[in-house]
Structures are given as C-alpha cells and as structure tokens.
C-alpha cells in the first residue's frame, strides 16, 4: 500500500464551510480554508472577529453548527480534542501549576506508549529545542512570561502533532521579546516542518512570520494570500484599511477604448489607465481604489509623465517619526496620507502647513477594490 504522490500540493487541513453561532450572534460565517503541509498559516483580524473560535473548532473545544474539519484526509469534525492530531498553545499558556516544567512537557507523552526512558529523552530534547534546558524542576510560577511561552510550545511540540495551533501566543510579551520570539518561532517551524496555524491581530507580525495569511472580518474570510498579496493587493476595503492603506478614493470609470479607461476623481483629477478585459471585468462604473501612503510623494509641481497621477492638494500637517515623516494633505475634501522614509540626514524637501503642493503616485500603485 503506497500513497500515490499527487502533483498538486495536498492540503493537510481542510476547513469546509464552517459556521458557528453563540446564541443568536453569528461568530463564524461559512469559513472555508485549505492549509498545506508545512505551512506557516496566520489568521489575522481585529479582536472579536472569530479567530479564537475557529481555532477552538479545529482543536475540538467547540462544535461547529455546520461544516467539516478534515485533517490529512480524515474527518475530525465530531472527534473529541484528545483524539485529534493537533495541539494548541493557549493564549494564557495554560501550564499546569501543580506540575513542574518536566512534568508539564511530559503530560501528553503518557498517551503515546513510550518507556520512561524515551519520555525523558523526548522531554529533554523538546526543552533543548526551546532553549530551556536546566529548567526541568521549576514550577510554572517560577518562570517569566517568555519562559512559560516556551514551555507551552515544548509541551505541544513534543507530541509531534500534524498541526500546531497558536492563539496570539506572543501577546503577553513585551515588544522587544516579542520580536525575538517571532524570529525564533519562524525558525523553529521551518526546522521541524510542522504546520502552524497562528492567530494574531498584529498585521506586521502576520506579514513577517507567515507563508500565507487569511484576513478575517466579522466571522468571514476577506482574503487569503501571501503577505505580499495581502499588503500590496488587498481585494476589499476592509483588508486595505486593516493593512494601513489609508488613502481610499471613490472614483468613476469611463471606458474610452477597448483597453483604455478614464478614472475620474470627482472635482479633483482625471487620468487614463489601460487594463486588459480580465482585470477590468469585476470593476463597475463607480468603484473604490486605494493607494498606500508610502507609495505617494509630494512635489511642488505636477509630474508630467503619463505613468504618474498628480493631485493638487494643500499641506495640512506633518508628523516626524524619526525613521519616517508622515504628511497629511487635503485635496478638495479628501485627506491624503503620505509617508516618506527619511533616507538622508537632510530633508529632501520641507513643506509648510497651508502650502499648495501635488500628491503624486505611479499608476501601477493603484489598487482597485472589489465592491461587495
């Protein structure tokens, strides 16, 4: 009996049409996801959007109202947590306070038919993996937040689950430690090759750590893609907003030729773009687009180049952050946010509130949003 290797990458975990309500509040609405073997997959969304609930359904702590959870081809929808090939790192770590570090990590090994010697070997290996060798006899109460975090990780990883679920595991750590743990976690996942499903509400964290991200809003998936796709090509207003693409424009589209269109920002500017049919199809006559703040720059004069758009505006305010400076411009009722990297000790140009300027961006940086 041999499994036939398929040319398409086999999804390790399939979430099929999962919905869940608490009372009459719909918390998850028809969630479907395929997550690949060895992937670092993040669920990203604001607090209360249902991330934890989805994770708990995968772990088996909640039953979905409808939908299926398939892991490695087996339907686990109705299986209790202790029969699932997944393990969880809890938001508050959930270390057993009456057991020491060794006993905490050894807890689940008891159910794997191992000898005492093998259990000891595996626990020590796991503790070494998370750099906690020598802490075997400590009680959880004698550990720092970061150390508890590592014990929780070791306790789950030592069982070699098919999928590791992590619910905002870095939240309780201070920013510096958090950055370090992100790097470590990523390295760890790469080395052991276990599929991670990582919950976070922090965009940067999701971008830096994940192979793919699912952005969730109000119990629905808004977009699934790589960090680059989510960041540079958000498909919905929510994703664009959530990823910090703050410049949202309402525009009208006029068709001029087969592939030539005119985009009109009423009372502001008109410019031409060319797009093939396939790309333009989902975009209606009235639509929205975004331009990220760091893709816009400020000039005293418009840029006479057909691949750029220049919008007349007035400087409203300036915020100096050190590494970057952010400007707010006003353009006929719109606010335009501009972010500029301070690449040199000297300001390239300085502008003063009330000054008439032009906000300029290259047309390829325009992201057309789907309307719902």
């Amino acid at each position, binding site marked *: 009996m041999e499994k036939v290797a398929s040319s398409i990458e086999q999804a390790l975990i399939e979430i099929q049409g999962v919905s869940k309500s608490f009372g009459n509040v719909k918390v998850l609405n028809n969630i479907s996801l395929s997550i690949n073997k060895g992937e670092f997959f993040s669920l990203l969304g604001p607090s209360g959007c249902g991330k934890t609930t989805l994770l708990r359904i995968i*772990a*088996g*702590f909640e039953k979905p109202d409808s939908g299926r959870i398939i892991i490695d081809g087996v339907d686990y929808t109705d299986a*209790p*947590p*202790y029969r699932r090939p*997944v*393990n*969880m790192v*809890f*938001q*508050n770590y*959930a*270390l*057993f*306070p*009456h057991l020491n570090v060794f006993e905490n990590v050894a*807890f*689940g090994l*008891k*159910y*794997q038919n191992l000898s005492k010697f093998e259990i000891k070997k595996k626990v020590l290996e796991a503790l070494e993996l998370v750099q906690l060798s020598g802490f075997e006899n400590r009680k959880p109460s004698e550990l720092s937040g970061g150390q508890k975090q590592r014990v929780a990780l070791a*306790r*789950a990883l030592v*069982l070699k689950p098919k999928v590791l679920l992590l619910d905002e595991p870095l939240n309780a750590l201070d920013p510096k430690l958090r950055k370090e743990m992100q790097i470590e976690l990523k390295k760890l996942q790469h080395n052991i090759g276990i599929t991670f499903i990582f919950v976070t509400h922090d965009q940067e964290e999701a971008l830096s750590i994940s192979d793919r991200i699912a952005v969730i809003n109000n119990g629905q998936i808004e977009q699934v893609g790589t960090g680059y796709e989510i960041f540079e090509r958000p498909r919905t207003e929510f994703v664009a907003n959530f990823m910090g693409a703050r410049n949202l424009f309402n525009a009208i589209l006029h068709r001029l030729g087969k592939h030539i269109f005119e985009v009109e920002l009423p009372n502001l500017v008109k410019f031409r773009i060319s797009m093939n049919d396939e790309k333009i199809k989902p975009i209606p006559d009235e639509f929205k687009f975004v331009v990220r703040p760091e893709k816009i720059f400020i000039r005293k004069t418009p840029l006479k180049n057909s691949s750029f758009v220049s919008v007349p505006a007035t400087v409203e305010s300036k915020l100096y952050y050190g590494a970057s400076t952010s400007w707010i411009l006003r353009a006929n009722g719109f606010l335009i946010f501009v972010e500029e990297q301070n690449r040199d000790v000297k300001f390239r140009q300085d502008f003063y509130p009330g000054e008439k300027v032009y906000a300029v961006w290259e047309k390829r940086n325009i992201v057309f949003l789907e309307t719902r």
Partner: protein
Amino acid sequence: MKGKIYWLFLVPSAFILIVFFLFPLLIMFYYSFLQRGVYGGFEPIENVKEYIFNFIWLKNYIRVFDPLYIPIYIRSLYIAFLTTLICLLLGYPVAYYIAFKVKPERKILYLFFIIVPLWTSFLIRTYAWILILRDEGLINLLLMKIGVIDKPLPLLYNEFSVLLGLVYGELPFMILPIYASLERIDISLIEASKDLGANEFATLKRVILPLTFPGIIVGVVIVFIPTLGSFIVSDLLGGAKSMLIGNLIQNQFMIARDKPFGSAIAFVLSAFVLLLLYIYRKFLGGKFEVL
C-alpha cells in the same frame, strides 16, 4: 501617630473573640483542674499546696484515659472517619456536577438547594429523620404497602442511622469548599489536558483532583472535626450502644453534673484535633497553603 489608627478597627473583632471565645475557654480550662462537688458544682480547694503537689488537679485528665472510655473514643474516630469519607465520595461528584455540568445561570439555584436545609434547626431536621426511619416511618410503611417487605426494616437506633444523620448534616460543608475550588480552576487547564490527549477521566485524575486538593482538605477538616464532637445525631438516631465522645462530654455537664471531668475530656479532644492539624501542616502544609 502614623498608621496606629488602624489598630482601632481591630478592637470590635478582638472584643468579640475575647469575650465570646477566649474567655469561656479559659473558664472551662480552669474548671478542668477542679473537682466535682457532692451536689454538682465544685469541691472547694482547702489546701492549695497539697492540691498542686499531690497532682489532685490532674485527676480529671488521668480519668480521661480510663480504659472504660477508650472504646467510645475509638468508635467516635471510626464514625467520624467513615462520615468524612462518605461525605467526600458523595460530595465531590455533586460539586463537580454543579461546577462543570450545570449551566452558569442555574448554578445559584443548585447551591441554594444545598444551603437551604441549613436554615432549619439541625435538631428539627434530625427529628425529621426519626419520622422517616422508624418502624412506622415513611420508608417502612411505603415498602410494606407495596409488599417488598412484611416486617419493618430496622432502620433506626443503629450505626446506619447515626451515619446517615451525620452524613446528611455534614454533606453541605464538604460540597461547598470543593465546589469553590472547582470553580477557581482555569477552564483552559482542563482544555489543555484534553488537548494533550487526556480523556475526561484522566483529566479528572491528573488535573482537576490535584488542583482541588486544597478544597478537599478544607472539606475534610470542617466535616471531620464537628463530627468527632457531635452528640445530637447519636443521641436521637443512635441506639443505647452508640455513645460518642460528644455524648460523653454532654453527659458530664447535663446528667453526671461533673463539669470538671467534662471540661477535661473536651480539652483532650481539642488537643487531639490540634495535633492532627499540626501533623497535616507539617507533612502537607508546605505543598498546599490552605490551613
């Protein structure tokens, strides 16, 4: 002046403790060294020197260990131990059920039903058991009516009825502290246990029981101690042979009119209980900060 004012707030409680607890105890302690008078009361001490150096003051304490009374002590310990054990075996599942299986909004109702009997005098509730258990009582009448038995079962005035009465009376005091410690358990610990592969039973054994150990200890202590000194239940529901330490002490005060001897037994009993608590603290107290 700074900070001293706080002591004022301790005065009322210190007053209550001294007047209602410490003072009566001291009086009883003093009594326990006196001798019973001919008509009850106390024999006046004529020669203090002789009284002290001939160890007349120790007479009551020596009498406490008279072999005549030893079976009563053993029986009392046995009954108290059995009562505590039964309360634990019955109380833990009840507390577990309320803590984990009852919907949050209905827990209050369940706790209410556990507490509400305590609003009635224990004496009255114990009398009520007589009506239920006696030969013409509820149970026997019912069983005879449906023809299961044709002779009344001997339910009253034996060890069974004493145990039943004690367990009935003490059960809430076992359930409540265990319930409180179950409620304190972080649910995510139980979920973590199941996540790591432990089923319901293994989770109970490896996580819930150890974490509720402090509650169990509190329950055991506050059931065992009053049971060891109890006298109402054995008096009303027990037969002639079912005298317990509590009855012995009560008899000295109410029937034999030997207050000094009664006081001495009471103090030996207290000392024994304190010794048990000390042993517990010495061997387990460091692990579980409860007492």
